């Protein structure tokens, strides 16, 4: 990312540098050349339509070029590649809590392997924060009440600044940390220690503790939809809309179950707002996700048809 952003930045420096030079040279030259002289009057010039058109159109096309280039860089930066390693981020006043999909938890520090795509699934417990790693030219606001997503791929081992970039109160400037980029071997060694098991396993435990499995059964008889293979798939809703079952949808379905009810089901699920912590939510999301990730492709395609009957069965239950 850094390379892409810097290339555009340098291009812009050159373009704007030339424009500045042009304007400043003209101003200074005219100001000196046409300074007040005895007996010389200013010439009467009304304007020139061809000139006006020229200096409207040329900048316009230059601007459009910058816009397009900027948009391309942005799109790349906003679209996490498939198969990224996932890290769940919970921001709060004034610290970063990070949890790897494999279960390692960190505070104000994130260890990542070099050369691997890392996807951050982020939310905030209180106010808006912003996850900013200048070295990666990466920044994404972390908003309470929803997930925002960002990704990066570190290319060089080292320790890089992590800043909170959205003002968040008293210790805003203390909400800093480090991204530690390690060689794969070192990273493996680091990963070996101190894990409580994968996040999805934690999620499975929460799922059981909260009694979710009573309704979200693994067959088609549940009062709620079968969650096998749902993640990442389009879901037909009761009101006819279709949404993609992404992190935000799973989150919303837990906290505000009545908002987007799956077609064929009744809005009988109680809200878990206030009953689950952000960390537990993340674990649940990771668990639901893991139900679709059993194999590289097999279970995904296999689960799709499972989903549809589950929905239609639900209708029959009505």
């Amino acid at each position, binding site marked *: 990312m850094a390379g892409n952003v810097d290339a555009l930045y340098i291009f812009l420096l050159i373009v704007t540098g030339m424009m500045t030079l042009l304007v400043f040279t003209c101003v200074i030259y005219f100001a000196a050349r*046409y300074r007040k002289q005895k007996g010389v009057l200013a010439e009467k010039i009304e304007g020139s339509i061809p000139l006006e058109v020229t200096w409207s159109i040329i900048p316009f096309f230059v601007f459009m070029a910058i816009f397009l280039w900027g948009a391309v860089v*942005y*799109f790349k930066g906003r679209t996490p590649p498939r198969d990224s390693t996932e890290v769940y981020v919970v921001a709060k006043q004034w610290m970063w809590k990070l949890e790897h999909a494999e279960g390692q938890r960190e505070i104000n520090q994130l260890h990542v392997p070099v050369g691997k795509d890392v996807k951050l699934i982020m939310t905030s417990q209180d106010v*808006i924060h912003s996850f900013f790693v200048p070295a990666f*030219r990466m*920044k994404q606001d972390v*908003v309470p009440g929803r997930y925002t997503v960002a990704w990066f791929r570190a290319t060089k081992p080292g320790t890089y600044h992590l800043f909170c970039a959205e*003002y968040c109160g008293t210790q805003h400037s203390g909400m800093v940390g480090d991204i530690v980029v390690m060689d794969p071997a070192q990273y493996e060694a680091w990963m070996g220690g101190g894990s409580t098991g994968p996040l999805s396993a934690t999620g499975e435990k929460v799922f059981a503790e909260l009694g979710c499995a009573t309704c979200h059964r693994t067959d088609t008889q549940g009062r709620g939809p079968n969650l096998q293979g749902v993640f990442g798939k389009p879901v037909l809703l009761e009101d006819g809309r279709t949404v993609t079952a992404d992190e935000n949808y799973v989150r919303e379905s837990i906290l505000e179950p009545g908002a987007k009810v799956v077609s064929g089901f009744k809005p009988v699920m109680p809200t878990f707002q206030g009953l689950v912590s952000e960390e537990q939510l993340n674990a649940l999301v990771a668990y639901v996700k893991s139900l679709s990730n059993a194999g590289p492709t097999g279970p995904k395609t296999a689960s799709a048809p499972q989903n549809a009957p589950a929905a239609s069965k639900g209708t029959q239950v009505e």
Partner: protein
Amino acid sequence: MSTALAQPVERENYLNKHYGVGSWLFTTDHKRIALLYLISITFFFFIGGFFALLIRLELLTPAGDLVQADTYNKLFTMHGMVMVFFFLIPSIPAVLGNFLVPMMIGAKDLAFPRINLLSWYLYVIGGVMMLHCMLTGGVDTGWTFYAPFSTEYTNTKIVEAGLAIFVAGFSSILTGLNFIVTIHRMRAPGMTWSRLPLFIWAHYATSIIQILGTPVIAITIVLVAAERTLHLGIFDPKLGGDPLLFQHLFWFYSHPAVYIMILPSMGVVSEVIACFARKRIFGYSFVAISSIAIAVFGFLVWAHHMFVAGISVYAALIFSLLSYSVAVPSAVKVFNWTATLYKGSIHYDAPMLYAFGFLGLFTIGGLTGLFLAALGINVHVTDTYFVVAHFHYIMVGGALMGYLGGMHFWWPKISGRLYPEGWARLAALIVFVGFNLTFFPQFVLGYLGMPRRYYDYSHMPEFQVLNVLSTAGATILGIGYLLPMIYFLWSMRYGKPAPDNPWNAAGLEWQTQSPPTTFNFDQEPVVTWEAYNYDEIDAGHREEVHVVG
């Protein structure tokens, strides 16, 4: 100095017609109200400037050592609120606009003189509320009031500060309303739309924004206050609200607000460049129309403040595209001012130096806007010092340079006195140098990744050198701002009496005496010439139209 005082009998004018506090506090004369505004906004400018100085002093060293974190957070918040709502937004319109709009179009006063006075009172009430708020604890949210921090998490005086801005906002709306009606209805015979000074066009465009935009910030403030006191759940997701909704509402006003600050300044610069190049502005109609275009397009770009806030990539795309559309009319203006210099007869009086300063700083400010509007770069530099530098180049470099240029240009008309030219040129130079030294290093800081609103950067001591440069610049800049206040005050007592038209300028405001009489003109002027007919004036073709007996 005694020679300056030697004029025994002063002509009757708006300043000496009535005496006494009451004659000022109950005046409906647009010129006196302009002076009331001048005093009030200068007061707030120095308060805001004092906060800025403390901020820069704190950042001299990486550790947070001068003030506490909470104090620092309040300092930059109050700096922003005071400077934006109580200085920049009223600055040119309420002082120079108030003074000049009627005179430039040949009117006796604004259309609604009493509403004009009301607007000053609203400003003062808002200002007193803001002062009270600051003295009893202040606010620590940043001038942007982002929810849910402002609505649920901070325990500072949000509602009071919000109401102060709410009240001051109505002052801004009333001024805009007054200008629009005045410009439509009160132009002197012959003062057609195509003969209007560009200062008037700029104020017309500004007034549109003031009337259409300000109610939105008022609504937003009411919603914040409601959520804070009644926990309604508009912005806080815990209560079912949407924090991004706040940002959309806030920037819907606060982006166009930047044009409230810069458009009048562009108007001033057009007047000054025409006068001191002794030429008609190159492409008059393009400069006029571009003001309106900026006002209109300016309403369509607000979400470019939110590219990393969590809006969809497609929304980001649209707002980036639209942001470039507003850059075109701004560029057109710069090219036209530059072309105006071509084959002119350029005088280097103090107002012109400020106009040159404006050109330089606005060009840099505008071009760095191209960086911020580019989505890929915005992600990296938003919420860093790059943004801080960019908007200071526009709002201080641009708007304030224009304001000072205008003050120097029209001071002889306003006060009837001449200021010391040498000091004024020196001040222009000091401001220009000090400004660049303060804010240019911040572009570099921003690209290197220093986030804004950090009071302690001991985590990244590598940023100290650039911060020291910036603080040094701020000191110089502070001196540059103090100087004009000192010599303007000095000139009121000791300055030489100003002739009616010291610059031999073309505008109608120069056809009346300095300082003008209460009703500006003894008889209604009739305009028979085009705007900026400097060629005719300098060739002696235009007869001086003395409309004062």
